[in-house]
């Protein structure tokens, strides 16, 4: 009987791998130029990632820059992954981005961090008013969590020395250079306090920094970025949402986008946990970026669920 169960598990796993179809990605990675020429509507059925993709591409007759259709996949529990359905976009992006990306973050005003400089480009989008008193606590909580990601400068300077082209940056957009300056001053105060061993001073400096990040948040820039995620983008939750494009140079509706809805996050721990998950998604298995079924996507959905229910499960089990 046990043998039968294990055989069933092995068959299911093999079936999952067959649906995942990782081989064509590698095959196209070798010849990205060839992939660029072929539009999904002309593509042979066998080289398309999923069965629904062919239908969508054919019905649209080639929509965006890649001649494909931006599609959205609900992977449940607040996760939506959107991107091109065709295998070509995924492979082209992978070929351009390089083998490894490091997650980073930056508080930046418009125009100071060009998406094209980075291997990947993301943004934190708050649909509500970040300067309002009701949202202040929540924004500060996400600001603290956001700061757990290494900054662009940290990664650029030795010993890491990781160029921007190998970074997947997530931007906290700020309205003007004044806000950035004020924020840098608060950051310097925090560093100074930490050097002195003054924990209270460092906390005060961080509070001041996050207050600037909240009041100076450039909602217009973030809204434009959210619109870049696609015309059918729906941000009905309280947010924030993490949106990402890869490669950064292709930021727009037609480039691959990873989207993480943090509307259900209520505590500082949860916020930090989800920002860590964001970094893991960026740096880890890229199968989770694409559309269609993949075992990595399944793992991601399960992790979101178990993370959301872990405290109740552990309480239940004593």
């Amino acid at each position, binding site marked *: 009987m046990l043998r039968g169960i294990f055989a069933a598990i092995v068959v299911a796993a093999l079936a999952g791998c067959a649906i995942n179809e990782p081989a064509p990605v590698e095959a196209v990675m070798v010849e990205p130029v060839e992939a660029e020429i072929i539009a999904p509507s002309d593509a042979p059925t066998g080289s398309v990632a999923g069965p629904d993709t062919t239908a969508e591409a054919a019905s649209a007759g080639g929509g965006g820059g890649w001649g494909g259709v931006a599609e959205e996949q609900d992977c449940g529990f607040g996760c939506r992954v959107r991107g091109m359905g065709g295998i070509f976009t995924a492979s082209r992006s992978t070929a351009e981005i390089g083998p490894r990306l490091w997650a980073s973050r930056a508080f930046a005003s418009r125009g100071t961090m060009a998406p094209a400089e980075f291997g990947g480009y993301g943004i934190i989008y708050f649909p509500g008013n970040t300067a309002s008193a009701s949202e202040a606590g929540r924004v500060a909580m996400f600001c603290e969590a956001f700061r757990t990601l290494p900054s662009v400068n940290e990664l650029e300077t030795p010993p890491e020395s990781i160029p921007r082209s190998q970074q997947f940056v997530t931007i906290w957009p700020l309205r003007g250079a004044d806000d950035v300056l004020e924020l840098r001053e608060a950051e310097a105060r925090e560093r100074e306090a930490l050097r002195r061993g003054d924990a209270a001073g460092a906390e005060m400096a961080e509070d001041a920094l996050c207050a600037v990040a909240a009041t100076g948040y450039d909602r217009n820039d973030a809204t434009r970025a959210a619109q870049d995620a696609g015309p059918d983008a729906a941000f009905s939750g309280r947010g924030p949402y993490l949106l990402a494009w890869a490669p950064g140079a292709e930021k727009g509706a037609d480039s691959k986008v990873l989207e993480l809805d943090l509307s259900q996050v209520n505590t500082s721990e949860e916020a930090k*946990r989800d920002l860590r998950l964001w970094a893991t*998604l960026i740096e880890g298995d890229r199968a989770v970026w694409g559309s269609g079924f993949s075992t990595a996507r399944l793992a991601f959905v*399960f992790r979101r669920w178990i993370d959301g229910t872990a405290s109740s499960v552990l309480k239940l089990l004593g």
Partner: protein
Amino acid sequence: MANILKLGPGAIIGLIVGVFLAEWISFGDPAYRASPGYLAAVLVAALLVTALYGFVLIPLVARLRGASAEEGDPGETPD
């Protein structure tokens, strides 16, 4: 007590499955091992597998053994 001990192999298999599951969902992030999600994944999988072992597999094996014993009853065999 004897019934609980019977679940031992199921619990061990469950824990192994749980650790594999938790490693799979951690995406290679070592920091995740210290999180409640990791522990919850291990425990949930261990409980499920143990329950399957205890409530499905053991009774099924017992029933199959019973059936085969009846088939092998010497009273029913021809001379």
